[in-house]
């Protein structure tokens, strides 16, 4: 959707928002299964997704940016075979959510700038 109004920055912001939402899904799933024996904590592979995005696959629609879900390598072991660490997951949930809010606000500001350009200063 590139064009005059929706420049690459806005497109990137929108993609980052979607990526944050996908990560939120994974973290919510981890929290839901915090007491499920045998459940393995998962994490979105942000770094690889980002590298893939930079590495080309110059598709305009960003189809190459597919987030991968991996088992969380930092998860500690627990006796019931469930390595979900409540504190760590809550921290990740909070930081991911804050990142999402920040991105949403930046995107809002850019749209505000566009609106100002369209309407002029009054």
């Amino acid at each position, binding site marked *: 959707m590139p064009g005059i109004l929706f420049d690459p920055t806005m*497109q990137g912001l*929108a*993609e980052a*928002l*979607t*990526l*944050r*939402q*996908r990560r*939120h*899904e*994974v*973290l*919510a*799933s981890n*929290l*839901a*299964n*915090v*007491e*499920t*024996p045998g*459940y393995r904590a*998962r994490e979105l592979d942000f770094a690889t997704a980002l590298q893939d995005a930079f590495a080309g696959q110059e598709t305009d*629609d*960003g*189809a190459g*940016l*597919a*987030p991968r*879900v991996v088992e969380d390598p930092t998860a500690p072991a627990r006796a019931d075979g469930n390595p979900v660490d*409540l504190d760590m*997951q*809550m921290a990740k*949930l*909070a930081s991911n*959510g804050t990142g*999402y*809010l920040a991105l*949403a*606000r930046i*995107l*809002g500001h850019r*749209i*505000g700038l566009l*609106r100002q350009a369209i309407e002029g200063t009054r």
Partner: protein
Amino acid sequence: MDVNDILAISASALRAERLRLDVISSNLANANTTRTPEGGPYRRRNVVFESHMLEAGARSAEADSGTLASLSTDAVRTVEVTRVVEDTSPLRLVFDPGHPDANAEGYVAYPNVNPVAEMVDLMAATRAYEANVQAVNATKRMAEAALAIGA
């Protein structure tokens, strides 16, 4: 996958933890019950949690995926209480010959409920419940922020 699906994941956990709290309350309430409809003393009950893939119907038609491929169906899991099982560990025998339920040797079989262990479970279940409430709140804040873009 939209906000409703994420809320469905958190809601499944809230329901499961609430059921666990029900069972713990029942265990604590019946810590000294020597008579049950099935006969014999009460036996401690336990819940079995099982993770499930999000129902196909619950997942949106991926129309929202826009520029990013959505997660695989295997990536996120809801949780369900599939069974409530009885704890088969031995009952607590207390010497009380005057009790109507005492056996020939004068021992009364009390439930195999350990109130301390139940309280610890109660706290763990409450914390897990609260964690999922936080997840719901975070989802709501994110959705509200998304709605406010450009407003």
